[in-house]
């Protein structure tokens, strides 16, 4: 008997532990949800709080009053009162050019500048936020944690070659906000209910998937449900089926909210382009600029950044080759770098044209002179460089690179 007991003990323990893991976790809309009352959930909440503190400390949360008020208004309107009683939902715009949104177990919901500039209207934003709110309500973070898959997913994603983002945060997101396919479907389904309750047009939800299907690999985090995810076509189909079946009471006249959304988006476009250039996404920055120029063809800033993207394509053939290889699935190596090196004249010509275009739109546009000056210096045209950079220093506002520019002017003097 003793031997039997001893040999059965490991199995008894496994069965007991298995039982713990499969206890139902109530949604936050249930009466007895017991949110945050177990040590493991509290640990997840603490980790989420620390993560938010870290992002704030690093200035990675966008501080734009108008954008924040808008996101808060749209987001808070989607949260059912019972869930709002259980947890405080906070909505943040994350300064990152990748296309992503994620929710953490403490009710913090993040949407990147990259995703906000991709969407077309408020209803699409509402769908993304609803989906993330649903993850919190359904406590998918805790469920995933208990299923012991979080660690595996986290290490899997961390192993992937990541490109073009301030990626230090990725392991934390993936450990707290990586969900199974079933959970994603569950969140998609609940998102439609939340959108419907808030009076949005449901067709916008599946239209959103069509937009994000066009996203290139480089623009999204691997594994992000809002990125170039292979399941987006299926999600679109699934969502359309639910909407068409009438399973969710939708209003065909529901709110789309294009005008206000476009205004908010225009606040973020330059930010997104700057972020892309910072992480050496030159071609992707050009794509964003060209798209934005269709909406705002008289923006000197857009032409200026177009010039910057081309100038940096010329200056940085290695970075350009790396990005190109990633976008088009080509092999990165010396051949590709040479290809970009050989195109430097083409890039510099395009840069000059863009700066000149910026100055033709606004003859006093100081940054246009900055770009032209730096390009001319690079190309050995020191007279033009001097004039342009001096104009920039004397006419520019809030110049942060004065020391850099003065150093170049000193170098020109010594030539």
């Amino acid at each position, binding site marked *: 008997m003793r031997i039997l007991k001893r040999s059965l003990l490991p199995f008894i323990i496994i069965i007991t532990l298995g039982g713990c893991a499969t206890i139902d976790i109530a949604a936050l809309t249930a009466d007895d949800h017991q949110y945050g009352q177990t040590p493991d959930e509290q640990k997840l909440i603490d980790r989420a709080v*620390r993560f938010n503190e870290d992002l704030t400390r690093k200035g990675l949360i966008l501080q734009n009053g108008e954008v924040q008020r808008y996101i808060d208004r749209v987001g808070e309107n989607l949260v059912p009162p019972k869930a709002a009683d259980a947890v405080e939902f906070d909505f943040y715009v994350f300064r990152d050019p990748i296309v992503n949104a994620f929710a953490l177990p403490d009710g913090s919901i993040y949407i990147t500048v990259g995703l906000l500039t991709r969407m077309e209207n408020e209803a699409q934003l509402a769908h993304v936020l609803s989906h993330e709110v649903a993850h919190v309500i359904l406590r998918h973070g805790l469920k995933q944690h208990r299923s012991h898959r979080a660690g595996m997913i*986290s290490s899997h994603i961390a192993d992937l070659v990541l490109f073009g983002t*301030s990626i230090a945060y990725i392991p934390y997101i993936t450990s707290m906000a990586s969900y199974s396919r079933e959970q994603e479907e569950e969140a998609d389904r609940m998102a439609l209910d939340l959108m419907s309750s808030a009076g949005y047009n449901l067709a916008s939800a599946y239209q959103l998937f069509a937009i994000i299907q066009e996203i290139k690999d480089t623009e999204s985090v691997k594994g992000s449900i809002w990125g170039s995810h292979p399941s987006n076509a299926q999600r679109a189909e699934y969502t359309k089926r639910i909407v068409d079946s009438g399973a969710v009471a939708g209003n065909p006249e529901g709110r789309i909210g294009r005008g206000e959304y476009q205004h908010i988006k225009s606040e973020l476009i330059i930010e997104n382009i700057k972020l892309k*250039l910072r*992480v050496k996404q030159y071609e992707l920055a050009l794509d964003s600029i060209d798209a934005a120029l269709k909406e705002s063809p008289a923006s000197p800033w857009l032409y200026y950044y177009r010039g910057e993207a081309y100038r940096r394509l010329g*200056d940085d053939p290695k*970075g350009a080759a790396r990005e190109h290889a990633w976008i088009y699935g080509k092999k990165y190596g010396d051949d590709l770098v040479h290809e970009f090196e050989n195109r430097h004249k083409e890039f510099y010509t395009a840069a000059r044209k863009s700066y000149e275009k910026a100055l033709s739109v606004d003859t006093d546009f100081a940054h246009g002179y900055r770009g032209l000056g730096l390009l001319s210096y690079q190309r050995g045209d020191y007279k033009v460089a001097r004039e342009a950079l001096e104009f920039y220093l004397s006419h520019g506002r809030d110049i942060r690179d004065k020391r*850099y*520019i003065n150093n170049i002017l000193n170098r020109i003097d010594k030539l």
Partner: protein
Amino acid sequence: MIFLNVGCALTTVREHPDFASAKRIVNTVAVIPPEVEIVRLVFDGDNQRLPQREREVFEQLKTQIPQLLKERGYEVRDSQLESLHEDEDEDDIRYELEQLKTAYKQASKELYEKPAVSPEEAYKFKVSVGPVINQFAERAGVDALVIVYCSGFEKSGGLQAKEIVASALLAALTGSYVVSQNFGASVEAALIDGTNGDILWSNVTGGQLSVEAIMKNVVAKLPEKGTATITAAQPAINSQPEMESVSE
């Protein structure tokens, strides 16, 4: 065999040719608050940051780095960045600081595309973070800034036990026993020109030593103020500045 190893000695140090030849001299420096990440690796893969330990290492590095730089002859000034953490109005500068760090991380990929290179190669690196550094150099009133990253790990008791069992099983099967490290750290440091963002010098090293000892080893390779690493016999190419220049 020993001679061969010596002949092929590789280095993790990188230097800008102008700095290596003492063409560009740095007198005053400020240290950007170091980035520290210490993780406890646990049995189930749900690894945890150790904020208390990170804070201790941060405080230790904050005192140690200026001292090491002074020993190399540099005048060290306050970066004026410590108070950023508390001041909400400084959000933009916090963001710019993060952008500087991102720019360095990008540059570091280029610097360390090959982890170790020959000494001849080590003094030819012309990599820049661009003018994003200007405002920080202005703020501190220095010629150059020092940026430091420290990352480390500790293994939990459970993970250590698991690895001992795994090693014992491996030993039984193959006859060889693998001893894995229960803690470790690495430190990367760089000296960046405050005017044009050129990375003048960088080094990275790691191991099972204390962070303090690793830091000391890293900075030991920094040339003393005003001294040249390479001589006229090893000319350092031309001195056109790099033009990494995304700005507001």
